[in-house]
């Protein structure tokens, strides 16, 4: 299992100052799969997601023990280059957060930062990323218009396209549809299904139907503990832990 895992998390503990937010989390994530992280608010699922590309580093008081291996390398070892880690493990946030620039410049932002300057190469990346994110038809005639003029659902797909443009291996999605209407949600869900061919996807969601619809594996968090992780179908039909069953049948949370 360890050799084939894209991401392997071992004995992960995370503290905000004195407060412990994650307890001894163990989890392996297969390449080219979708893993859903579910659990009630404040259970640590978003915090866990953010440990995978070290976004928690931005918070001063965070301290971490244990190991997180991406492609077999410990991303918390002192010689890890955080910038290149985040290029490989990208993130889509809960609220769409396009930059206040044109659609084109939003997509080209990452490639430019990573040294691509040629107009022709950028044009190609922009088109490919927008097509991958199923936004090309809506956006192709307004590439030089502000991204802030797009609808919320379009903005979120733009953010996904912006991320795809830097060609990461792993996509972390932190409740990417919670600020979207049902139709936009459906579009983003379809999109994740298609992206799985090329990427490893980990998605935090509050929506249990969503987890059941799109994921291969589901992990259930409660009070900072990873209670159970297994095949999504098995998890939703025959959960092995009483607490998982209570949560997915709506008895709490």
């Amino acid at each position, binding site marked *: 299992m360890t050799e084939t895992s894209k991401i392997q998390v071992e004995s992960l503990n995370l503290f905000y100052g004195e407060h412990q937010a994650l307890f001894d989390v163990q989890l392996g994530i297969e390449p080219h799969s979708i893993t859903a992280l579910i659990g009630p608010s404040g259970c640590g699922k978003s915090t866990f997601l953010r440990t995978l590309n070290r976004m928690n580093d931005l918070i001063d008081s965070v301290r971490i023990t244990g190991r997180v291996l991406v492609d077999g390398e410990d991303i918390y070892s002192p010689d890890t280059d955080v910038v290149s880690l985040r290029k490989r493990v990208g993130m889509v946030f809960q609220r769409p957060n396009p930059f206040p620039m044109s659609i084109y410049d939003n997509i080209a932002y990452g490639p430019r930062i990573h040294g691509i300057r040629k107009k022709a190469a950028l044009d190609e990346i922009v088109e490919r990323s927008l097509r991958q994110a199923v936004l090309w038809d809506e956006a192709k005639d307004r590439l030089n218009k502000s991204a802030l003029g797009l609808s919320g659902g379009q903005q979120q797909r733009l953010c996904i396209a912006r991320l795809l443009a*830097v060609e990461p291996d792993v996509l972390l999605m932190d409740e990417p549809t919670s600020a979207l209407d049902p139709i936009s949600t459906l579009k983003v869900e379809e999109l994740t299904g298609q992206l799985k061919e090329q990427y490893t996807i980990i998605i935090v969601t509050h929506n249990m139907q969503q987890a059941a619809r799109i994921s291969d594996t589901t992990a259930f968090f409660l009070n900072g503990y990873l209670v159970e992780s297994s095949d999504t179908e098995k998890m939703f039909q025959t959960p092995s832990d009483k607490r998982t069953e209570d949560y997915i049948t709506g008895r709490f949370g």
Partner: protein
Amino acid sequence: MKKTHSRLTDRIATVYFWLAGLAIIGILGWVLYDILSKGLPQLSWHFITGKPSEVSAGGGVGPMLFNSFYILFLSLIFSLPVGIGAGIYLAVYARKSRFSDLVRLSVEALASVPSIVFGLFGALLFVSWFGWKISIVSGAATLSLLNLPVLVRVTEESLRSVPSSYWEASLALGSSRWQTIRKVLLPSAMPGLITGVTLVAGRALGETAVLIYTAGTAASRHFPDFGLKEMGATLAVHLWYSGSSSLAPDARQIAQGSSALLVLIVLIFNLAIAIPGRIIQKRLTGGK
């Protein structure tokens, strides 16, 4: 009973706020009218570009006008890099620590020092200790000390007003902090920065107390004179000088003309920076 009471207080509050607003507009209008109606008749091409005259009537303010902008320009060259750099440090790099608290406290303290104190400090430091004499460069250096704390605060505040989601998005795409600052943070903060720098510059154009002991009350006889060690009376200082101790028989008219000129310059200056600033901002945000 209760209802009519609250309706009455609401009316009173409404009237009060309207009056307060009108009072501000009224005062501003009255001041502008007073200055411009007395000063505009004094303005002529000869007055604006001519050389000053110490004892006879008909002197101009050309060299002072030039010095105002020259000293402003030099002081911004000194203070912008340091002020904006320190502002970026406080907004982005500084973790909450004793050191960053100390920096912030110093900035607050410096910002509240009266400008005459900066003037005397500059006179001691630049004029005497550095031996720069009473000169344009001494004045500009002292003025930049006065501007520095305001610039630091303006930069920090305008950077903090940028949504943190931009910061996260950029880092999550694998950019370094410097790339994020340069490509996302600074462009988004640009309107605030431009407004702040304009305010600082406008204040510097009208500053006198800092410059009397450091740039002096006399101007070079040549015009325009870019010499850093020349005496550098500015328009605002000349206004003070004409109003208080000038020997010229038409000192009063010179003072009135200078006031009007100064007000016009500050207005034009604000517009000249604000309008291109808007255009840059529009382009950066893709027209929205």
